[in-house]
């Protein structure tokens, strides 16, 4: 393994990450959540859509550890299935934003000049609209559904990545080793792939982790507003919306999906903060 050589950057990053307890906790929570999402059909005690009107509004019990909702559906099972949607939206929306925003930012930073101006002014326009409003607009225009939700959240997060990647690229382009590579006859593609991207991966990875949390929150908010995942498929934000009417009498219906959102976002933030510290070259050793 070339990557895990004792003095490689990845190895050092992992060593430093392990010293940060909160980051390790965040990493474990995310792993558990990921496994939960993947094995949801095996883990969930009930199907997410199985209605049992006799058992509606049951408080937590042995049969229904987190209680049941207004249709008698098991809340634990719905939260477990809901992890699938949240993680998918979070990861795919951020990947979309990272890829498209990253390419635009890299082009702007590397070539500069008018191209830079045009791209970044367009990003400024996107920035000027509050992100949640932008996501709502896009989601409303595209219609509900997992795919459209992902696109809406992804586009809303795009300008952040364009800006971060551009900044990172600008700081690397001025380095002498880029000039050295050019002197050797390297093409632009070679320089970007071999020198620039590997050297600006740290801020992108950190921001990516933190943005997954925001994307999950945005997706939950859109679903809460009815613009995201449609019932009966469970989505944490959608579950919150469904419990809104019963908040006074059956608070647990809102508490558990809310806790799921909170724990996920907290874990991602711990992990992101930990990665940022671990990748900071100034803290080496």
């Amino acid at each position: 393994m070339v990557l895990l050589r004792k003095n490689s950057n990845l190895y050092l990053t992992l060593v430093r990450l392990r010293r940060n307890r909160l980051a390790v906790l965040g990493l474990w929570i995310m792993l558990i959540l990921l496994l939960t999402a993947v094995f949801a059909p095996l883990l969930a005690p009930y199907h997410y859509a199985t209605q049992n009107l006799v058992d509606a509004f049951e408080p937590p019990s042995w049969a229904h550890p987190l209680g049941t909702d207004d249709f008698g559906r098991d809340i634990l099972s719905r939260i477990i299935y809901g992890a699938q949607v949240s993680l998918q939206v979070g990861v795919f929306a951020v990947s979309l934003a990272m890829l498209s925003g990253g390419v635009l930012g890299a082009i702007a930073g590397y070539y500069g000049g008018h191209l830079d101006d045009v791209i970044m002014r367009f990003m400024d326009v996107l920035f000027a609209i509050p992100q949640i409003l932008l996501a709502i607009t896009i989601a409303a225009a595209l219609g509900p559904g997992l795919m459209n939700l992902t696109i809406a959240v992804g586009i809303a997060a795009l300008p952040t990545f364009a800006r971060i990647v551009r900044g990172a690229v600008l700081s690397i382009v001025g380095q002498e080793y880029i000039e050295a590579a050019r002197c050797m006859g390297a093409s632009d593609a070679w320089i970007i792939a071999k020198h620039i991207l590997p050297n600006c991966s740290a801020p992108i990875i950190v921001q990516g982790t933190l943005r997954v949390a925001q994307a999950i929150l945005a997706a939950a908010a859109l679903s809460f507003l009815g613009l995201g995942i449609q019932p009966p498929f469970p989505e944490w934000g959608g579950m919150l919306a469904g419990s809104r009417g019963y908040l006074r009498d059956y608070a647990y219906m809102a508490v558990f999906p809310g806790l799921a959102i909170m724990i996920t976002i907290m874990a991602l933030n711990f992990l992101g903060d930990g990665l940022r510290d671990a990748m900071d070259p100034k803290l080496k050793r």
Partner: protein
Amino acid sequence: MGSPAVTETMVETRRLKKYFSTPKGPLHAVDDVNIFIAKGETLGLVGESGCGKSTLGRVVIRLLEATGGSVLFGDQDIVKFDKNDLRTFRKRAQMVFQDPYSSLNPRLSVEQLIAEPLRIHKVYPNERETSVRIKELMDTVGLAQRLATSFPHELDGGRRQRIGVARALALNPEFIVLDEPVSALDVCIQAQILNLLQDLKDQFQYTYLFITHDLSVVRHISNRIAVMYLGKVIELAHHLEIFENPQHPYTQALLSAIPIPKLDIVRKDRIILEGDVPSPVNPPAGCRFYGRCPSRQADCLEETPELVEIGPNHFLACCHPGAITAQKQPAQ
């Protein structure tokens, strides 16, 4: 310019200009420079910070685009090269950079760094031959094989600069620009790298353009020395000639500033220049050195002196040369 008939010219610049646009106007970093470098020689290029010597070195191998004039490499003008020509040219002309800390990608190991030029130009069809060549290059520049998998941050400045040299040699170039290759190193490592460069030149017959601000360094390694001031080459001669018979007042002042390594003497012949270097943005008309020249005369402002041959292989750009040579009497 009358180049010596016996030797072949490797690089020649003709009225080479490089201006940078600044908000205040064009910055004349290199202005009408005419020099030639013969095949197999080392041309030392000296001057103070900001005089344009590094810019000249970069324009000569087209890391920067010239604003005007031409750079002849053999019989081709590299200023007119298209992408393909340039790619071939990169194999023939290379550069060693000043700072071995910032000129090496921190994420690549020594062997990856040395392999980069070979991989860019696909010199070898397979990894095995590439790694044989890497080993050979590491031997050539005196890097122990055990360092092959090390990263730059684990090595000292001298070893890093050896990597830089190995990268420059990898493609078997004919011409190498050395941009202050030792000024970021401490003194004893400087000597090692200079000896290495000299040995390599003897072994492979490279042509060097050696850029430096350190006169003691340039004296030992150069065949000829060019002195630059504010974007212009003002004097160019054989290295002994420059040190023993400098004609330009600026060269004389520069040489008089070399410290003598003895405690009990004070240099009496020290020429102290007054004032500062004028801004290279919209430089003064006439002789660029006028404002600080101890032997200036009224007509110096009338026209910009051209570099002309005043003696065998001694070129000078000054209207009233030799005016203060009388002062040059080394103190004992």
